[in-house]
């Protein structure tokens, strides 16, 4: 789902903080001979061994955050609990640096009759009339796409599509907004080729038309490309699903792909800290996608929704089982019992901490009434989708997890899901801002002659950012599903909904250079460009999603850019009367201490009452009058 800023702890080989050979649980291996003697950190042991040190710092947790966990639990956490808190309180799950600013989107949200689900859920939902609703969201997968471009981009698409499914919608289109380093750089070739093949490989195989996006080249993205993927889905307003686990006795079902050691670079520090075992010291931090599995999971979900078989559903994203269980439980009756031993594994040697942190793709978690479980599993069998009941909802107010009968997690789920730390990070304008702003276009030489002018035009037309994007768009299927009314080379994508005549238009835009010069105005410009692109197809703009790509929030200059951009966007949304329905924040986009240009990418959704009346970009009627609107 979202990206993981991997704390690099790939080689913890020689130092194992906290390894305590004196502590063993001899009874476990005896009672379960089929299982290799597993040295598990249980709740009971945590109570017995308060002094045991845990590698929380390696997992990216600060001293005071760890102290809060101890305070919440009244004891030290088990290593499994630490896995949960560290990932749930990480920047990208808890939004701890951005939260205080993002509130403006809600505080300044304009009145909207169309808004059915606002910010905070997997994706926002808007009513588009005629009994149809639409859900859409954009998300980043930047860092993984630099490490392994094909898989990073592919799993970025896969993650956002699952977000849309988990709202109860059928995904109907995707878009991708991409930023790369200079085209002539050797590494750009690797990254661009892999990313585009990955976006296409996954989206094409899922059967979702790609109806637009961007490709921008700038040196600031050379070692930090941006891969932002958008998905839009369609549903009936009454069929909206939520990530909640209500009703004690309801079953918790994990379905989709098996759980493997994907993206658990961070978790291996726990495994190796707690258990002295070599095989756990090197885990891949790349996630690998299986679009075919996602396709059958999608179709399976559609049939499950059609028969109304779930009371709650959540996709498994960056924080995997940790995130799904804590969020479902926190938003439901409040309690859940999970037997982690029942999680189907692709690698039988996985530790419980690793299972909790695994980012394996194409997995979903559903909450199902007992009477409907059999039918649910039957539909999964029809689509060859593995599905397993791994626990049930309780009214204990605790999330409890067991491993071979031992309790290894016992926490109030809300403390992990909703009560993460909130930072008011200091911010101030970057030191070089004044200088940058002073360096206006007035100082540039003007073309003096016709020849100069011609050269300038030719240079512009030939520049990578304006050049033809067919190399990219020809690798994406824009026809599948048969509802694509406008796609490349148009400025906005338009698709028909249901059997028509209504439809929706979507555009994404962003300009890091403007935003670097003036984050407030830059964010507004991105919004108004997307807004215009949607409006010029003849659509009525209705709602906004955004992906905020920035450097490190610990850098006051970056934090200032972020704060100003959010303020600008929130003010502009208010002025234009379109609410922000969701989005994603991606921090730590930087090379060394040099951040990327602040790059908010804004997506705007509009409605067409009759797609037959869409307006194309081309002049296709002879003798029409040309008018220039605006200043």
């Amino acid at each position, binding site marked *: 789902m979202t990206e993981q800023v991997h704390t690099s702890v790939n080689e913890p080989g020689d130092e194992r903080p906290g390894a305590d050979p004196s502590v063993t649980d001899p009874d476990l291996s005896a009672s379960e001979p089929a299982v290799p003697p597993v040295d598990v950190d249980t709740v009971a042991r945590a109570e017995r061994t308060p002094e045991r040190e845990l590698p929380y710092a390696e997992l990216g947790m600060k001293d005071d955050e760890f102290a809060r966990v101890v305070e919440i639990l009244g004891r030290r956490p088990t290593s499994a609990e630490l896995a949960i808190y560290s990932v749930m309180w990480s920047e990208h799950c808890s939004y701890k640096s951005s939260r205080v600013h993002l509130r403006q989107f809600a505080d300044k949200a304009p009145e909207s009759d169309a808004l059915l689900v606002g910010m905070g859920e997997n994706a926002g939902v808007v009513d588009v009339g005629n009994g149809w609703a639409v859900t859409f969201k954009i998300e980043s997968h930047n860092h993984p796409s630099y490490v392994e471009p094909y898989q990073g981009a592919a799993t970025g698409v896969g993650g956002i599509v699952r977000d849309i499914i988990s709202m109860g919608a059928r995904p109907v289109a995707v878009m991708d907004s991409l930023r790369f380093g200079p085209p002539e750089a050797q590494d750009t070739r690797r990254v661009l080729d892999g990313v585009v093949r990955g976006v296409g490989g996954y989206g094409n195989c899922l059967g979702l038309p790609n109806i637009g996006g961007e490709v921008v080249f700038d040196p600031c993205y050379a070692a930090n490309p941006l891969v932002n993927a958008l998905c839009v889905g369609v549903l009936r307003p009454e069929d909206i699903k939520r990530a909640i686990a209500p009703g004690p006795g309801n079953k918790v079902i994990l379905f989709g792909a098996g759980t493997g050691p994907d993206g658990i670079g961070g978790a291996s520090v726990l495994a190796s800290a707690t258990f002295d075992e070599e095989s756990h010291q090197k885990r891949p931090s790349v996630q690998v996608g299986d679009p*075919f599995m996602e396709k*059958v999971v999608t179709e399976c979900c559609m049939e499950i929704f059609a028969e109304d078989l779930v009371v709650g559903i959540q996709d498994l994203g960056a924080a995997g089982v940790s995130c799904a269980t804590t969020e479902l439980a926190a938003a439901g009756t409040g309690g859940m019992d999970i037997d982690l031993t029942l999680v189907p594994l692709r690698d039988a040697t996985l530790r419980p901490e690793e299972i909790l942190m695994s980012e394996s793709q194409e997995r979903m978690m559903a909450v199902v009434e007992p009477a409907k479980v059999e039918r649910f599993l039957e539909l999964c069998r029809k689509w060859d989708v593995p599905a397993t009941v791994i626990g049930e909802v309780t009214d204990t107010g605790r999330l409890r997890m067991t491993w071979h009968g031992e309790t290894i997690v016992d926490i109030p789920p809300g403390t992990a899901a909703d009560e993460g730390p909130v930072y008011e990070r200091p911010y101030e304008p970057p030191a070089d801002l004044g200088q940058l702003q002073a360096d206006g276009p007035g100082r540039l030489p003007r073309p003096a002659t016709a020849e100069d002018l011609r050269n300038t035009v030719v240079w512009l037309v030939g520049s990578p950012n304006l050049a033809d994007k067919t190399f990219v768009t020809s*690798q994406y299927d824009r026809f599948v599903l048969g509802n694509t009314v406008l796609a490349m080379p148009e400025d906005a994508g338009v698709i028909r909904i249901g059997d028509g005549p209504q439809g929706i238009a979507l555009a994404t835009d962003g300009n890091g250079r403007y935003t670097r010069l003036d984050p407030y105005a830059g964010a507004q410009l991105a919004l108004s460009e997307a807004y215009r692109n949607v409006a010029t197809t003849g659509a009525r703009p209705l709602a906004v999603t955004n992906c905020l790509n920035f450097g490190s929030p610990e850098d006051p200059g970056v934090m200032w850019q972020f704060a100003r951009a959010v303020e600008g966007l929130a003010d502009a949304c208010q002025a234009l009367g379109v609410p922000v329905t969701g989005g994603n924040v991606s921090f730590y986009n930087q090379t060394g201490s040099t951040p990327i240009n602040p790059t908010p990418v804004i997506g705007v959704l509009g409605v067409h009452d009759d797609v037959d009346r869409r307006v194309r970009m081309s002049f296709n009627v002879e003798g029409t009058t040309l008018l220039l609107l605006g200043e």
Partner: protein
Amino acid sequence: MSARVGVITFPGSLDDRDAARAVRLAGAEPVSLWHAEADLLGVDAVVLPGGFSYGDYLRAGAIARFAPLMDKLVAAAGDGLPVLGICNGFQVLCESHLLPGALTRNAGLHFVCRSQRLRIENADTAWTTDYEQGQEVVIPIKNMDGCYVADEATLEELESTGRVVARYVDVNPNGSLNDIAGICNEAGNVVGLMPHPEHAVEILTGTSTEGLGFFTSVLKKMVLS
């Protein structure tokens, strides 16, 4: 009673609903067929739609061809049932040896999605009678493994017996031998086509409506027989 045209859904089929829409727009009743049910439900013709059945893992079409329904289809095709395989459907037909040759990775090694000009080379098959011999049409193509290959003897036979149904014009998007976009079996009832006629059936969503002819052709054939 209108003609009933089956559209098979395999796990990973993508254009099945589009094929059904095209069948409907052509005036027939689409009947969805599930790969795992060995029953053709008495349909008058069958479309194997595009997509990535089983993710195109191993080889495009390689796993789908073992579906229980495929045994039935192979038998029925032998008895003259009109069958159209589009893209992945074409790949499945080759893998199940209903059509000769094979479809391999595009010569450019990239997925290719474009509006493609074709020439109808054989307007006598079950699926092409509504076209003129030599007529050029523009319909979308979108595939990863669309490069048609066969040994020389097979190519020679296809060419000399008029079994090349459609050929790419202007650009060969995937390196297919002899610019082949589609072929048929000896009897002309089984046609495999790389481009997607079902995406050229409505002005609103396609670049033309020139794909509709494939679906109307088969209806005529059924009315006549």
